[in-house]
């Protein structure tokens, strides 16, 4: 609130608080005073479930995802086929679990690459400023003038549909956006006195960026990764859905929804389960990002759409 608050009350002899492993992990990202934010916990659980699916997917699927059961086509969910079967009699549960492998790994890779490059470029030009900053940011402005999905489509059209190309396309969409966010974070940090102290010492640009700035940008970067991950899932499944992303017979969630559309009226489970998978993953990433953001009281550079 904007009212009188207790002015900082310096404890007489501050002792380092003892931290548990969870808090210490969060402290690494600049989230201290961690006190179970419900957002973060729920989001974390959703994400954890999905990560587990990715890791142990092959162990828990009852059938190979490509196996046809021609006698059991379009069966509703049952004990035998938990999520039902599709028009080839393939087990939807197995396909959704494998889809986690596909969709999530792909989105994670695109996020890691896109945000990673964005961090590197954004922090460098933000810190260096001047001509370099001017030129790079104008190029980024150009890229930012494409709506996300359209840019991804454009790149896909040129590279041709494949998993790797989806990763590249989404990465290219993310780079200018993450660059802009991290640049503004860096601008907020670079005139702080401890950075100037490093400059007065004559530290190299690399040292200042990696040792002085990066640790302080960790929180915003976590937020950025979480939000971008949710966008990556949305983008990659959308590409799959409109048919220019991952191609059949890969078990991509977006593709599965698209295939299930023919049977929307008769076999809605074909669409429902992959849609549920997409939504929970995105909700998880969003909640987690929001939670971390609230903890940091970080509202700078709303992650661009």
């Amino acid at each position, binding site marked *: *609130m*904007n*009212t009188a608050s207790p002015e900082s009350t310096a404890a007489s002899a501050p002792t380092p608080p003892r931290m548990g492993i969870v808090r210490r992990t969060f402290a690494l990202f600049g989230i201290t005073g961690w006190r179970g934010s419900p957002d973060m916990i729920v989001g974390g659980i959703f994400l954890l479930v999905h990560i587990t699916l990715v890791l142990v997917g092959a162990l828990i699927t009852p059938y190979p995802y490509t196996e046809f059961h021609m006698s059991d086509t379009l069966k509703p969910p049952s004990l035998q086929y938990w999520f039902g079967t599709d028009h080839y009699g393939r087990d939807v549960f197995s396909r959704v679990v494998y889809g986690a492998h596909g969709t999530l790994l792909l989105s994670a890779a695109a996020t890691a690459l896109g945000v990673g490059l964005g961090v590197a470029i954004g922090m460098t030009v933000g810190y260096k400023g001047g001509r370099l900053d001017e030129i790079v940011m*104008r*190029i980024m*402005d*150009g*890229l930012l*003038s*494409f*709506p*996300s*999905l*359209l840019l991804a*489509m*454009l*790149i*896909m*059209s*040129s*590279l*041709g549909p494949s998993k790797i190309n989806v990763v590249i396309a989404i990465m290219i969409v993310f780079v200018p956006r993450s660059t802009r966010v991290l640049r503004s974070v860096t601008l907020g940090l670079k005139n702080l006195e401890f950075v100037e102290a490093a400059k007065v010492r004559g530290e190299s640009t690399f040292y200042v960026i990696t040792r002085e700035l990066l640790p302080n940008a960790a929180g915003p970067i976590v937020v950025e990764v979480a939000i971008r991950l*949710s966008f990556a899932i*949305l983008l990659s*499944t*959308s590409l799959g*859905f*409109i*048919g*220019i992303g991952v191609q059949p017979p890969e078990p991509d969630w*977006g593709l599965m*929804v*698209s295939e299930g*559309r023919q049977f*929307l*009226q008769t076999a*809605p489970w074909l*669409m429902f389960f992959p*849609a549920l998978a*997409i*939504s929970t993953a*995105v*909700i998880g990433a*969003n*909640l987690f990002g929001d939670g971390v953001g609230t903890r940091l009281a970080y*509202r700078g550079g*709303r992650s*661009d*759409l």
Partner: protein
Amino acid sequence: MSLWVFVARRLLFSALVLLMVSMVVFVVVQVLPGDVASMILGTDATPEDVATMREKLGLNRPAHVRYLEWIAGAVQGDWGTSLRLNQPVAPLIMTRMGNSAVLAGLTLLVAVPLAIGLGVYAGLRRGRLPDRIIALVTLIGTSLPEFVWGNLLIIVFAFWFKWLPPSSLMDPGDPVFAQFKLLILPVATLTMVMLAYTSRMTRTSMIEVLEKNFIRTARLKGIGERQVILRHALPNALLPTITIVAMNIGWLMGSLVVVETVFSFPGLGRMMVFAVSNRDVPMLQMTVLVTAAIYCLANLLADVLYAYMNPRVRY
């Protein structure tokens, strides 16, 4: 500096950005793939076919010449000929764009006031039940992709209740308002998504303003909470929503592609999907260029409006 100088500067800037956009489009579509002709024709094309295609597209000339020709043509209204439809691209784009504009316009009309209202309300009730409910709804809104929303609405309103048609198939040339019912579900889908992003951002902006010292000043002036909100909080909180809406228009353009596919709506987005799937290079590059130009224009308008409304802006 006057507003006009600012506008002039901003226009110049937009022109530069568009120039860059056109280069990006050209490079991605025509230079990156290596041999465009064989890419278009696929792997089993004969060398003769490829040669004919190269001839047809003028690929034998250097890239920069082709680029300049393309831009010159685009500016003069010669937007090329579609490879698959064998029709000039310009009229195709124009009709489809009109259709998409109707969808987008209706969406904005519904979603923006609603989103701002919800965002402001949630911000005012921060942390209380209404805020939580709005937060949950908008979270789900942002987390379900457009194609999931669209299909859900189809299941509910077309299959269960049978109120509305499950698709918006129609002849691209028909006036879109003729069959108003066809527009409802696509607009509803787009609204869900738009609503979610815009209201979340508006809420944040409202909360930021409510924490400002001048709100305290206003309250302690004793002018009553209503006045505090209407005169002091809202004008300052709504300024950033101009930028927020502009940013969301970019997302909306992506959503259009998906929603038009879900509902088989004859708009620009579906045409772009068509162009990509069919490797229709002339059509693709113009469609993308046109959408990017519209987005640029939206941003330009937002910036000018923001500058006009904000006494603090140092142009």
